[in-house]
């Protein structure tokens, strides 16, 4: 959140600790590109950052329509940044529809930069404006910066030897140049990037660089802004960084873990928003031994992953809600044959096809219970884009150590959002040992490791250890088909207990704040940034509030019950109608309350601050 926002009456260069910017326009306006460039440049100057792209469901909706507006929001700052921000300080709107859709989020007093050329009668109509908001008092609560970006870009490029269409496309760089000036950013990163990207089309590269610089100098020369701002470097841990989306970080975490375990990764996947980029990323990692199958459907995807694990690879599949619903039967099979497999569910708005491009946390219960019979599986969740790396790594550690499929939950917000990731030294990654059994002496397919209750993993091709697995109930030890009643009860118990053993090597719970007090917030997944920010702000205001964010949803952390009992009240904020809440109430008989939001969007920090207030002093 912006603590010292640009203000209409301030002096020319102001120092602020954090800023939220939102770029918005048509799919064709280059909004995502602009946002990404701003992000990278800001990272390079040492700010902490968090971003969130916001796509429409349509591929390229007709220009100028409200439903076709594409957005990219980022927060950058001199302090630790955990969310893309609640309320933008600056809105760059490339057309009336973008203005209409986004203006209400903008902080009162914030800056609106518009491209006046796009405010034609036709575009105003499409956006549902009866009169031109740039000319009436619609925007009186904000600082309006009107620039005919199109005209100026054309002007700047009038001699460039490229098509008019390409000239017009450069207008986003003009706008980016202006914003770079506003926040005192260097141009060189973007200049280098453009030259690299268009190395085979140097005219285009040159024109784009020109547009960028023209925007920058225009802002400087024409004194477009009443003041400019500087955002100092954030106190960031030393290291090499790069910006990662959650999907990319997940892909790297999986590949890293497989490589550390010295096995190949096999991905069976079927494209689905917002998980497809995981498939794309992994398909690009063949050099690391990654085989990907774009399967005919999600069932084939999960089954191929099971087959790959059976053959000694790390089988992985990636999907989103509707696809997860299709995998239930096969996940039951994986659980019966007790082989490693990671199933990544990038949650999106449900139920059914729901809101495919929006985020939600509503797949927890299906992750926990969406299989016939007693079929417990470990479920873990990532909390931020960069944390997806660690969460994926942990998923692989568990799946290999305990020979059980693992469900890894991320969500659309994490998957598409990005933040700086401190690149780990590969040598520092914890070891993972697949521990294939090759010794035929005394081999029993369902003998168990006394510590983990894991069964042996034997690669086909290993001599003298031929054996059969399958989905029928198995005899303890031999793994033969067994219809014996006593054995069935025992095996169900063993499968349950094996998963519970995961509690034995969980790292300690990390609590924000005191270990006891008036109120404990319990969160999971992508709400981490917002919850932590809100809790810290409440604590700064002297409130006795703590929070804990769960990596493990099943089994739960062994210390969680004790922690809960040390607080008077418990609040569980979730982007659903109370799914973790249900689990916690059943497990600990705690009268916890939920904060629920089902709007396809993350919590704002403000919503959480209000809920903390209400829980502490209100009804709850």
């Amino acid at each position, binding site marked *: 959140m912006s603590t010292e926002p640009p203000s209409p009456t301030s002096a020319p260069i102001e120092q602020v600790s954090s800023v939220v910017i939102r770029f918005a326009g048509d799919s064709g306006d280059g909004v995502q590109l602009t946002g990404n460039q701003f992000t990278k440049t800001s990272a390079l100057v040492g700010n902490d950052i968090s971003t969130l792209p916001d796509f429409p469901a349509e591929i390229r909706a007709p220009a100028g329509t409200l439903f076709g507006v594409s957005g990219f929001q980022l927060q950058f700052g001199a302090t630790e940044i955990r969310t893309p921000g609640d309320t933008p300080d600056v809105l760059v709107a490339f057309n009336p529809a973008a203005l209409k859709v986004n203006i209400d989020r903008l902080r009162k007093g914030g800056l609106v930069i518009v491209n006046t050329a796009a405010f034609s009668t036709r575009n105003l109509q499409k956006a549902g404006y009866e009169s031109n908001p740039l000319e009436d008092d619609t925007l009186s609560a904000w600082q309006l910066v009107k620039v005919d970006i199109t005209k100026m870009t054309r002007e700047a490029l009038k001699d460039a030897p490229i098509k008019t269409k390409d000239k017009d496309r450069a207008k986003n760089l003009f706008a980016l140049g202006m914003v770079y000036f506003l926040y005192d950013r260097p141009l060189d990163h973007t200049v280098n990037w453009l030259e690299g990207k268009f190395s085979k089309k140097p005219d285009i590269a040159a024109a784009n660089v020109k547009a960028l610089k023209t925007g920058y100098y225009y802002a400087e020369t024409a004194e477009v802004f009443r003041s400019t701002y500087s955002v100092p470097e954030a106190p960031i841990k030393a290291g*090499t960084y790069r910006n990662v989306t959650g999907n990319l970080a997940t892909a790297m975490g999986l590949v890293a873990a497989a490589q550390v375990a010295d096995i190949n990764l096999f991905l069976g996947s079927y494209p689905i928003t917002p998980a497809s980029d995981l498939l794309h990323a992994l398909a690009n990692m063949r050099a690391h031994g990654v085989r990907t199958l774009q399967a005919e459907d999600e069932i084939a995807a999960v089954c191929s992953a099971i087959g790959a694990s059976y053959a000694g690879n790390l089988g992985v599949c990636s999907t989103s809600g509707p696809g997860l619903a299709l995998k239930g039967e096969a996940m039951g*099979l994986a659980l019966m044959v007790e082989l490693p497999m990671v199933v990544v569910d990038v949650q999106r708005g449900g139920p059914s096809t729901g809101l495919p491009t929006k985020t939600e946390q509503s797949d927890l219960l299906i992750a926990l219970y969406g299989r016939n019979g007693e079929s417990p599986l470990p479920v873990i969740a990532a909390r931020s884009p960069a944390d997806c790396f660690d969460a994926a790594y942990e998923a692989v550690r568990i799946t290999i150590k305990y020979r059980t499929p693992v469900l890894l939950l991320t969500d659309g917000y994490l998957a598409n959002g990005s933040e700086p990731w401190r690149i780990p030294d590969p040598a520092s990654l914890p070891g993972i040992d697949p521990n294939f059994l090759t010794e035929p002496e005394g081999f029993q397919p369902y003998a168990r490791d006394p510590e983990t209750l894991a069964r042996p993993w034997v690669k086909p091709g290993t001599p003298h250890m031929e054996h059969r697995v399958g989905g029928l109930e198995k005899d303890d030890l031999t793994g033969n088909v067994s219809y014996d009643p006593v054995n069935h009860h025992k095996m169900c118990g063993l499968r349950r207990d094996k998963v519970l053993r995961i509690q034995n090597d969980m790292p300690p719970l990390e609590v924000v704040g005191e270990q006891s007090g008036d109120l404990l917030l319990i969160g999971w997944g992508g709400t981490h940034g917002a919850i932590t920010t809100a809790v810290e702000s409440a604590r700064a205001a002297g409130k006795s509030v703590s929070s804990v964010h769960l990596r493990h949803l099943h089994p739960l952390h062994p210390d969680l019950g004790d922690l809960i009992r040390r607080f008077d009240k418990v609040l569980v904020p979730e982007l659903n109608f109370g799914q973790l809440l249900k689990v916690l109430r059943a497990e600990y008989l705690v009268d916890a309350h939920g904060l629920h939001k089902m709007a396809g969007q993350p919590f704002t920090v403000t919503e959480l601050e209000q809920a903390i207030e209400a829980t502490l002093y209100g009804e709850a």
Partner: protein
Amino acid sequence: MSEEAVQLTRKDLTSDQEVRWCPGCGDYAILKGVQNALAGLGIPREQMVVVSGIGCAARFPYYMETYGFHSIHGRSPAVATGVKMANPDLHVWLVGGDGDMMSIGGNHLIHILRRNLDVTILLFNNRIYGLTKGQFSPTSGLGVLTKSSPMGSIDPAFDPIGLALGAGGTFVARTVDLWGKHLEATVAAAHAHKGTALIEILQNCIIFNDGTFDPAVGKKARDENSIELVHGEPLVFGTDRNKGIRLNGTRLEVVELGDGVSEDDLMRHDAHDDSAIVPHLMATMQYPDFPVPTGIFRQVDRPTYEQSMEEQVHMAQLRSEGKKPDLGALFNQGDTWVVS
């Protein structure tokens, strides 16, 4: 793969599990034939993996002393795809019934055929759901009275051969449970094929569909009512090998040899026909208008799926000497910056 050839016997491929099919079920004969065929391949048994779905047929892996995976209904092609892609050195067989492979598993079947993964599919066609006690299957055909079609089935039958050809299958064949030698030879030929090989095995379910194939391929009928397809050979059949199949325009017709009709007038089988038209023509022969064709309908060479994938991995690793590059290379792609 450069294994030393191993000589196995059927017994080496027999597991210690009690066989649980109904006495008299055609599956017993298939088991025996497959064990014989596999024993003769010169492959060590630890390199063999049998993957199946669910059904009577799909119990098969339990009885084979190889690696085996009895998966879930209809999904064996998907499981096998993972197995073979993960380790192309393994030799993989899929076993399933007509319901498993063509009803719930129909999509996976056509997609594995399309991709041409190097595995052999043994489709046990008994024209019925055995394990669930006698409902009609996608190969049962019109009018069949079963538990789920008490007034007669209104579902036309799939022709497994025609469907496999339509899906681009590169090796498509038919054999019969009780034809021991024929079955063994077909299984061996399928294994020799590089790519997905589908064998339809006509199988008798003694309990729910006894004798369904007898009129065409039963002991007494076989010579008269079936015809063996041999690549490049004229289509001759009959106990006295006195009948043949002639192409008339685009239609086939049964003719008597002699009386002006010689073998030279007959159609010759072309299993290698690139366009698959000849195999399709063969598939149009349906009993009782025609003899039932058996043997290899089609066999053409195409790149296998898993080898194409291996090539991509190889290409990607050219720069790193055929090994995985250090993870640092992966992590540090794109724009990075240093905070000190």
